[in-house]
């Protein structure tokens, strides 16, 4: 069956008989939760999109202490948010198998950083498994639950974007239900019953002992495979998906019999005896992994004891780059060099350069019809009107589609960092006398901004907050959040409006406006800017792409340009820049591509001469 890596992980969890799963959306992990959301009811398990990753982890840990298996999934930086509870679960131990997925994003395909979360596994005495493809992803997941229960530790399943998003044929196992009774294990987890001192102190020693035992188990685990005849002079330790590049390179070069290979599926702890065998048997060893030299550093330490003469190749000796994803050509050329061969340089380097000079880069922008575009447009006008200059205020953005506010032609966002940071950094700037606006989305507001908002109220900090509320977590695929009024599996539930929270925590000036109404939104922003203290505008309109999804198979009515009225001023293109707009250079008129237009009609409000109208008008 053709499965994506992320779908295979869900399949593996279901074959392991999980009872509960929780996640917060984030690329490249999102499809794990999306898939759970689709199948949870049918499989009789609980799945939720939690408010953030820490909550998700805690929910699953709670069930684990009651002897139920569960999975938490998140993108790499989500684990930073969940780190507090992850560390405690590692120290206090688990009961029902607890597997958490950290989907790392080397080379930052869709992230602000490429943090390698295997260091957190090492730091917290947590085993880390690295699948190389969708089949591994399923099989490793099933094994991870066994391992978790055997050693009573949470287990990290660590993928990278190219495993999470790879699709290939997967052989399925049987779906399982465990039918275990849910009972809190007092002997293991209750301070009162187990004894406070026993549970609280000295847990690091126990965790270290568990990892030492797992290390021995990994030496003979099928997750690690050594292929060596003893005649090779060169070896490779290929971690996770880089194994695929190594094998493709060896097949291509016809060098399979010249190179001994360890397919490494367990990066923490390392199977030291297995690796020692390779280190002792060859002269040169290449370590391939992404993105940090995590395995390489530990192999280097090991080599000092078992074969100090072995020459190590990888990211630390400069033969591979110190950061980022590996590319097949990089792996080809290092292996060739180790075998004493030389490959021709990239045959396409020259023509690629020509193409790069000729073709634009295709910058990201918010979609056609996106309500954020009109919110930013209105915000610029309001700041200009109240402050005289749009750059008199620092715009601190946040994580989500609206984070693209920096992109031309809107070009109106100075910073963004991590979930919820817009509110915190804005307060620091404001305290030292610099004017700010925190520019945050609805999903991010719930995830991490509420404590920061209360902080601003308590400290009487003069900050302005714009919530770009498009009613879904759009960037990761339209997942619901606490305001949506529905659960992950589509059940109706209580909606938690942002304005209710804001007023409840003491924000006195809170207004809600329709993002598609530029005049009204601009007026609301002006009133916010003229208010002392904490003031908030929620600029609300459902994500255009989501709106179209909801009306399918019907489509909205596109807008068009009345050529006789258009004066060719390009105002709509240069200040608004919706992807549905372009310019006919011969006629000198703006045009709207009806296949792209979402029918929001905001460009008609931007036009000075009234030349844009709906096709039905």
């Amino acid at each position, binding site marked *: 069956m053709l499965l994506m890596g992320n779908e295979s992980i869900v399949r593996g969890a279901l074959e392991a008989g999980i009872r509960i799963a929780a996640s917060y959306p984030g690329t490249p992990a999102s499809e794990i939760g999306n898939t759970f959301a689709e199948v949870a009811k049918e499989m009789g398990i609980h799945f939720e999109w939690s408010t953030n990753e820490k909550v998700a982890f805690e929910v699953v840990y709670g069930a684990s202490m009651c002897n139920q298996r569960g999975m938490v999934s998140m993108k790499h930086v989500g684990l930073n948010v969940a780190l507090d509870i992850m560390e405690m679960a590692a120290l206090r131990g688990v009961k029902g198998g607890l597997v958490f997925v950290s989907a790392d994003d080397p080379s930052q395909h869709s992230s602000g950083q490429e943090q390698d979360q295997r260091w957190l596994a090492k730091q917290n005495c947590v085993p880390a498994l690295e699948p190389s493809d969708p089949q591994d992803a399923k099989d490793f997941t099933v094994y991870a639950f066994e391992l978790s229960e055997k050693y009573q530790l949470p287990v990290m399943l660590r993928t990278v974007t190219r495993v999470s998003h790879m699709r290939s*044929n997967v052989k399925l196992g049987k779906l399982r239900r465990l039918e275990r009774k849910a009972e809190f294990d007092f002997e293991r987890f209750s301070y009162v019953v187990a004894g406070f001192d026993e549970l609280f102190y000295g847990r690091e020693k126990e965790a270290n002992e568990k990892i030492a035992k797992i290390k021995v188990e990994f030496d003979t685990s099928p997750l690690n495979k050594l292929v060596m005849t003893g005649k090779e002079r060169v070896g490779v330790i290929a971690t996770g998906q880089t194994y695929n590049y190594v094998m493709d390179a060896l097949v291509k070069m016809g060098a399979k019999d010249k190179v001994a290979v360890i397919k490494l599926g367990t990066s923490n702890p390392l199977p030291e005896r297995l690796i020692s065998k390779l280190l002792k048997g060859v002269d040169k060893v290449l370590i391939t992994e992404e993105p940090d030299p995590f395995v390489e550093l530990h192999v280097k330490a090991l080599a000092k004891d078992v074969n100090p003469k072995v020459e190590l190749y990888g990211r630390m000796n400069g033969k591979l780059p110190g950061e980022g994803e590996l590319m097949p050509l990089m792996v080809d050329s290092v292996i060739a060099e180790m075998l004493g061969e030389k490959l021709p340089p990239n045959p396409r380097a020259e023509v690629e350069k020509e193409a790069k000079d000729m*073709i634009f880069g295709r910058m*990201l922008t918010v979609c056609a019809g996106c309500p954020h575009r009109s919110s930013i447009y209105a915000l610029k006008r309001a700041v200009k009107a109240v402050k005289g200059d749009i750059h008199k205020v620092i715009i601190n953005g946040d994580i989500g589609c609206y984070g693209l506010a920096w992109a031309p032609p809107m070009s109106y966002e100075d910073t963004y960092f991590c979930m919820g940071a817009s509110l915190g950094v804005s307060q620091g700037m404001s305290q030292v006398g610099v004017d700010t606006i925190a520019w945050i989305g609805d999903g991010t507001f719930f995830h991490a901004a509420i404590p920061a908002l209360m902080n601003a109220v308590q400290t009487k900090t003069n900050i302005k907050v714009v919530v770009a509320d498009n009613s879904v977590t759009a960037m990761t695929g339209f997942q619901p959040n606490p305001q949506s009024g529905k659960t992950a599996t589509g059940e109706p539930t209580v909606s938690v409006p942002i304005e209710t929270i804001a007023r409840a925590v003491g924000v006195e000036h809170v207004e809600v406006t329709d993002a598609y109404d530029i005049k009204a939104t601009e007026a609301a922003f002006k009133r916010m800017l003229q208010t002392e203290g904490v003031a908030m505008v929620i600029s609300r309109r459902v994500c255009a792409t989501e709106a179209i999804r909801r009306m399918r198979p019907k489509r909205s009515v596109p807008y068009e340009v009345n050529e006789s009225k258009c004066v060719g001023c390009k105002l709509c293109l240069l200040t608004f820049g919706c992807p549905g707009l372009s310019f006919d250079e011969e006629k000198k008129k703006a045009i709207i591509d009806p296949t792209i237009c979402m029918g929001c009609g905001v460009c008609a409000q931007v036009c000075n001469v009234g030349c844009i109208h709906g096709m039905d008008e």
Partner: protein
Amino acid sequence: MKITRVVIAGVGGQGTLLATRLIAETAIKHGLNVRIGETYGMAQRGGPVMGHIQIGEAYSPQIRPGEADALLGFELAEATRRGVTYLKQGGLAIVNSKKIPPVEVISGISKYPEEGELIKLLKSVSSKIVVFDATSLAGKAGDTIATNMVMLGALATSDVLPFGEKEIIAMMKESIPARFLELNTKAFKLGTEAFRESK
């Protein structure tokens, strides 16, 4: 062992993934190993999308520069961008002439290159280039959203894949919901005709 390699280039929202999946599902049905890799980080937001497919005994989906047997270009500039890197000398390029200008063109920061210039550059790696307006053909079939099936139809008619039109149409019947099937098969057929006419 023979490996078939195809690169798909386009822009977010063009349905490249459905075309890729149909190829892969057909391959699996015929007992072939297949690997797909897609890069689409924030594709919904107008970004470029690229898919790699390797059919046969490959470990990774990732195709090395200059090794793709075919390029399926859903958008003119994206086709050239990826084609010059991945298409092998003499490989087949099927290119939709549709232009989707990015925000830097819309807002006047850069220009969309002339079609002639783009094709000329692509020709420097292969002269086997078929260009036609797949988006208009999809419109004729009923909805421009079916551009992906027009492109797939054209690829299926070439002899690049280890299976042909019939096998892919059979798979479409299995995996596309009934209410969308007519539009998609119609678009697919227009793609096969466009490819034949180009010869």
